[in-house]
């Protein structure tokens, strides 16, 4: 085999050599000497040191970096603009039903169809309320901007009031009672400051948890969906 080229010697230094080159290097005194010469030079460069950084260096870097990061408040999928579409549709349906229930001699719509519309509207309302409550209960202490939650609670509040009244008129007291509890929670959220403090958030979370409101809403929602499928 021919003597190793400079490129092959460099590859050998970094351990990238072909097996044949490696064998030649151990057998050929001339190539071995050339390799040692290269190794001396490159090893000398390795003696260049870098200033030491302590074990908490990563944390220091993070602390300096954090104020510079373009952090966005995590946007909740359900709070985007298009979520207003079902809200408005529900409001229309609820308003329609409310009108029907307040007119004893209502004609033109079968009771079963009316019941179905109510269940669908109620199911949708409870789903959105459940998401709002779940988001709120799981929000971390850093979630100080409360603007979107307030706005959603206001939307849900009007709808909730109509649905509570409709449920009461239809004689469903337990459903009306849960909607009443939900209404009070929505009122609290809607009237919270737009920049909520950690203790205020915690108090709100504790109240929702203590009343078991999320659980009650889930149960009713599940019953509604089940009934809706049966109709």
């Amino acid at each position, binding site marked *: 085999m021919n003597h190793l080229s400079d490129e092959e010697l460099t*590859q050998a230094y970094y351990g*990238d050599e072909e097996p044949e080159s490696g064998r030649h290097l151990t057998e050929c005194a001339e190539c071995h000497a050339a390799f040692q010469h290269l190794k001396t*030079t490159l090893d000398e460069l390795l*003696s260049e040191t870098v*200033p030491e950084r302590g074990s908490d260096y990563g944390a220091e870097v993070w602390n300096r*970096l954090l104020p*510079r990061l373009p952090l966005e408040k995590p946007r909740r999928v359900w709070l985007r603009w298009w979520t207003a579409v079902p809200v408005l549709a529900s409001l229309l349906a609820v308003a329609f039903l409310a009108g029907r229930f307040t007119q004893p001699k209502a004609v033109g719509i079968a009771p079963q169809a009316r019941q179905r519309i109510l269940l669908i509207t109620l199911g949708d309302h409870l789903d959105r309320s459940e998401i709002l409550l779940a988001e709120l209960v799981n929000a971390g202490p850093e979630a100080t901007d409360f603007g979107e939650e307030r706005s959603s609670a206001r939307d849900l509040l009007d709808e909730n009031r109509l649905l509570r009244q409709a449920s009461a008129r239809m004689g469903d007291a337990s459903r009306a009672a849960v909607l009443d509890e939900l209404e009070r929670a929505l009122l609290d959220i809607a009237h919270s400051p737009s920049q909520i403090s950690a203790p205020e958030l915690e108090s709100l979370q504790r109240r929702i948890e203590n009343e078991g409101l999320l659980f009650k809403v889930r149960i009713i929602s599940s019953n509604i969906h089940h009934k809706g499928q049966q109709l």
Partner: protein
Amino acid sequence: MDWTDRAAAEEARKGNQLAFRVLVERHSRLVFRLAFRMTGNEQDAEDMVQETFLRAFKQLHRFDGRASFGTWLYRIAANCSLDLIRARRVRGERQPGLDATASPDPSPERVTRSKQLAGMLDQALEQLTEAERTAFLLRHYEGCNIEQIAKVLGVGNSAAKHGVFRAVQKLRCALEPAWGGAK
């Protein structure tokens, strides 16, 4: 938190701040080391560490997981450092030499020798192209393999291998005659 780099990057992309913190804490020292080698002084290296993570955060959506997160970060760090070096050239500033007192406990002889070596290495590194310089620093000091270097440089393996070789050749030409006299 026991996230892999890839899982942490995925979480960070979804807006999980803690996940990005994990990545920063895990890779800061490596990024600093490369930035120091590239820029030649401590303060610039610190600035480059910040700049690297800032760019990484903004470009997280571009991390596709084909290379390791470390390699991807190296690429950003190398580019940040090269930008600084280019800016220095435009301003007519010289690239500062590697800090001769970087050793934790330097003896007077060590400091003298280190200064001598740093000065010569600094001049020799100036003769390398950006790709050669990056390839050499990654191969020689950071122990990156050819495939990783290729990914950092955005070139093929063969080009990366030649980059390392050309850098070594140029450094030898510049340093060996001088060291012959210095030793």
